[in-house]
C-alpha cells in the first residue's frame, strides 16, 4: 500500500453518509466503499468507524436493520434517511465552499495580495 492520507477531522461522518447514500451497507461495507471510491488513498481508523455510525444513527441521519450479508451471515445494514439526505446535501455544499475558499487562499502569490 502506498502512502495514505489521514482523514481530516470531522469529515468521517460526511463520507459515511455519502457511502450509504449509494445503497444500504453494513459497517465493513462502508469502510470498503470509502476506500474503494478514494482509490485507497484515504486511511480510515477502523476504531472510529462504529462510534461514528452509532452517532449518526442516534442523530437520525441513518437507520439500521439486520439483514444477510453476501456470504450469508447476519449483518447490520445502514441506509440513509430523509434527514440524512438533507444533511449530506448541506455538508457537501459547505465542504465545496470551504474547499474553494481554502484553495483560492492557498493559490495566492505574493503579488496578488
Amino acid at each position, binding site marked *: 500500500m502506498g502512502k495514505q492520507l489521514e482523514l481530516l477531522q470531522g469529515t468521517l461522518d460526511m463520507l459515511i453518509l455519502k457511502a450509504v447514500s449509494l445503497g444500504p451497507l453494513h*459497517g*465493513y461495507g462502508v469502510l470498503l466503499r470509502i476506500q474503494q471510491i478514494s482509490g485507497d488513498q484515504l486511511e480510515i481508523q*477502523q*476504531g472510529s468507524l*462504529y462510534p461514528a455510525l*452509532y*452517532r449518526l444513527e442516534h442523530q*437520525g441521519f441513518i437507520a439500521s436493520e439486520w439483514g444477510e450479508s453476501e456470504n450469508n451471515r447476519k449483518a447490520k445494514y445502514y441506509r440513509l434517511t430523509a434527514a440524512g439526505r438533507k*444533511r449530506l446535501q448541506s455538508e457537501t455544499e459547505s465542504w465545496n465552499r470551504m474547499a474553494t475558499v481554502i484553495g483560492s487562499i492557498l493559490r495566492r502569490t505574493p503579488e496578488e495580495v
Partner: protein
Amino acid sequence: MSLRSRLASAWKALTHREQMESELETELQFHRDSYAGDLIRQGVPPQEAERRARVELGSAVHQQEECRESFGVRFWDELRGDLRYAARQLRSAPGFALTALVVLALGIGASTAMFSVLHATLFKPLPYEAPGRLVTLRELDAKGNFVWNFYADIREWQQQSKQLSAIGYFAPNRGYLETPYEVYAASAPLVSANLLSVLRVQPILGRGFLPDEQSPGTSKVLVLSYSLWRNLFHSDPQVVGKTVKLDDDTYTILGVMPGGFEFPANEDRAQVWRPVPITSANEVRNFSTMGFEVVGRLAEGATVASAQTELSGIQQRLAPLFRTVMQGQDGPSRVEMKTYLDSLVSNLRPALLALLAAVSILWLIACANVANLMLARGIARQRELAVRGALGAGRLRIVRQLFTESLLLASCGSALGLALAAVTLRVFSKGLSSALNVPHEITPDFTVIAALLLLTLLSAALFGLLPAWLAARAPIESSLRQNSAQAQGSRRRHRLQQGMVAAEIGLSLVLLVACGLMLKTLFALRHVPLGFRTDHVLVVEPKVPEYKFRNIDVSQAVYRPLLERVQQMHGVQAASISTVMPLRNTFDMMFMLHGSRSNKTTGENGSFKISAKMKAVGRDLQKVLGFRMAEGRFFNEQDTPESQQVAVVNKTFAKLYAPEGSLTGNFTLSFGKKGEVKVVGVIDDFHQVGVDKPAAPEIDLCAEQMQPGDGLYQPTMQAHAELAIRTSASPEQLMADLRRVMVDLNPDLQASEILTMDQVVEDSLGSQLLAAHLLEIFAGTALGVALAGLFGLLTYLVGQRTRELGIRMALGAQRETIVAMILKQATLMLVTGGLLGIALAWFTSRMLASFLFGVSPHDAWTIAAVSAVLVTCGLFAAYIPARRAAQVNPLEALRAE
C-alpha cells in the same frame, strides 16, 4: 436530527443495554471476520490476519464505550458506575456508613416531621380562591374587649365599605342529619347567602343560596359537603331537590360543594351549610341578639390595615346607636382585622417557628457532623484518589464521584428520615392535633416530600462538596509518595474539622439551653400552689352517644342518677357535680350580664357589666377539692330549689366587681326567671384556667337549686357536666370499680372518661409538656450527635498521630501528659463551641419567651448548668481517645513504620 430519534435511541441504550451490547459485538465480529477474510485472500497468514483485524478495530470494550458516548448515555453509565462504586465504598466501611446514615436520618427526619406540621398549619392551603385575600374581623369596645359582630353593623359595612369587595357572615352550629339508616352528627353552620361567593367557590351540583332564602318563612334549604354527598347519598347525581331531615326539620338539598371544600376551615366534621334566617330581631343592637363571625374579601389594592381603618371609621359612627338599647353603655367602636388564615393559626406561630428553628439547628449539626466524617474519610482515601488521578481521572470527575457518594448517603438518609418522620408524627399525633388544633392526622404529603428532596440535595451539597473539593485539590504526587497510613492531613484541614466540631457543640448548646429552660418551666409549673387539693381526687366526664340523647335532658336522666349512685359507693368520701372541673378546658361558659348592685347601707343603686366564667357546682365540691372560703359560706343543705337562689364568686370576681369591700349578703344579681341570685360567699382564688394563668373571675351557681326551665339551666347543667370524687384510698384503685358501676347503671356511659386530678393537672401543661418533650428529644439528639463528632474527630486524630505519640513516649513523655494533651485539645473545642453556643442562645431563647414560666429566657443558672453538662459529657467523650493515645506502645508505633 429529530429529538425523538435521539430520545428513542438513548432510551434503548439505557434500558436494553445487554441487547445493544450483544448486537454491537455481533456487528464487530462480522467486521473482524470479513476483514480477516480479505487479508487472507491478499495472502496474509490466517493467524496474522486475525491478529491484525483485532488490533485495527480496537478492544470491544473500548468500542462499546465510544458508541455509548455517541448516544449521549455515557453520563448515565458513569453515574451507574459511580453509584456501584459508592455502594461498595460504603459497604467496605460499615462503621462510617452507619454513623453517617443514622445522623442524617435524624436530621432529615426531624426536619421532615416539622415541615409536615408547618404545612398542615401555617402554610395550610385553604380551599378557596385567593385565600390570602380573605379576612376575618371582630368588633371591639373602647377598652379593647372583643364584643360581638352584630348583623346591623355588618349590613352597614356591606353598604359602606370600599376596601372590602364582599362581606359574608356565619354562625357555627351543629345538627343531626337523619337518613333512613343512620343519624349523622354534622357541622351545620348558618351562613349568609353570599358566603360562597365571598369564598369564590361554587357548588359542583345544583346552586348556592339566594338572598331571599334568608328571609324567615321561606322553605328550609341546605348545601351538602362532598363527603356527605358521597357517604350518605352515594354520590347520587339527582340529589338536588331531594329532602333531608336536619334536627327534625325538613330541608331541601340545593347543591353539593366540591371535594376538599370546608368552612370554617378548622372543622373536622362533615358539613352542611344553611342560610341564616334574618328577622327584625337581628336588627337590634344588644347582647341578646345573635352574634356572627365575619369573612370578607379585600378589594383590589386594599390591605388588611387599610380595610381595618376604614371599617373602624364606619364602626365609630355606629357606636352611639348602641346607647339607647344598652342602658347607656358604649357599643363596639372599632374593629380588629386579620387574614382568615392568620385567625386560624396566629396563636401557634411562635411555637411552630421556635420548633422550626430547633429542627434547623439539629439539621445543621447533622450536616456538619457528616461533613466531618466525610472529610476524615477523604483524608484516609487520599492515596486512593491520588491513584485514580494518576491513572487519568480528571479533577472534576473525582469531585463528581465523591459527590455521587454523598448523594447516595443523603438519599438513603432521607429514606430513613422519611420513615422516621412518619413514625414520629404518628407517635405524637395526639399531642400534636390537640396542641395545634388540626383536625386531621398530619402525614408527610407531596409538598413535604418535594421539600425533603430539596433538603437531601442541600445536605449532600453541604456535607459532600467541601470534602470532595478538598480531596480533589490535594496534589497527586505527594499523596502518592506517602504511605496512606501516615498521610497527614494539612494543619488547615485539621483546623477546619475542629471548627466544625466546635460549631456542632455550640449549636447543640443552644438546644440544650432551650431544653433546660423548658424543664425549669415545667418544674416551676408543677410547684405552683393550685389552691385546691389534687390528691385522692377522681374526675369523671360522663359521655353518652349524642344522637340518643339529643332531645333528652341528660342532667336529669343521666348525671343526677349517676351522682347519687357514686355517692353511695364504697371508698367514696364525697362526690359532686361541676359544670367543668378546674384546669379542664373541655367546656367554657362565659357569662355577661348587667348586674344591679344595691348597697343597703347607702341605699345606692347602680348597674354595671359583668363578664365571668359561670358554672353550676354541687354543694359537696368543697369537700372534694378542699378550697378555702375567703368570706361567707359555700353551698349547704339549706340551699334547695325552693329557697333563695344563691351563688358564690371567687376573689378575683369580688375584686373586679365589688371593690368596696364585703359583698357577701348585700350583693345580688338579677337575671333568670326567679329574679335574684344572692351571693353568699367568696372562694379563695384557685387556678381554674391554667397553672400558668391567674384565676379568672368566676361565679358559681348551686347545682342542687337548679331546675329544668331556669334560664341558666340549659347552658350550665344540661350542656356539660363533670363529676368530682374524693376517694378514701388511692384513686387509681377506685377507677375500675367506678367504671363498672357506671356501665351497670347506664350502658350508654361506656365512653366516659375517668381521670385522676393529678393527671388533669399534668394534661393542662399540654403545650409546655409537648414543647419540653420535643426539646428533650432534639437537644438529646443534638448533644449525642455533637459528642459523636467530637469523639470521632479525636479518635481519628489520635490514629493519625500514633507515630508521633510513640516518639514522644520514647523520648520520655508521661502517659498523664499525653492524656492531658488530648484533653486540652478537646477542651479547646468545647470551650470555643460553648462560648459560641451561649452567644447564640442569648438571642434564640427569646423565641421561647411565651412558653416560659417562672424563669427568664436568660436564666444564668440554666445556662451554667447545661454548659457544665455539656463540658462533662464532652470530656468524657474525649477521655476514651485520650486514654487510647496514652496506651500507645512506643515500640510498636515505631516499628509499624
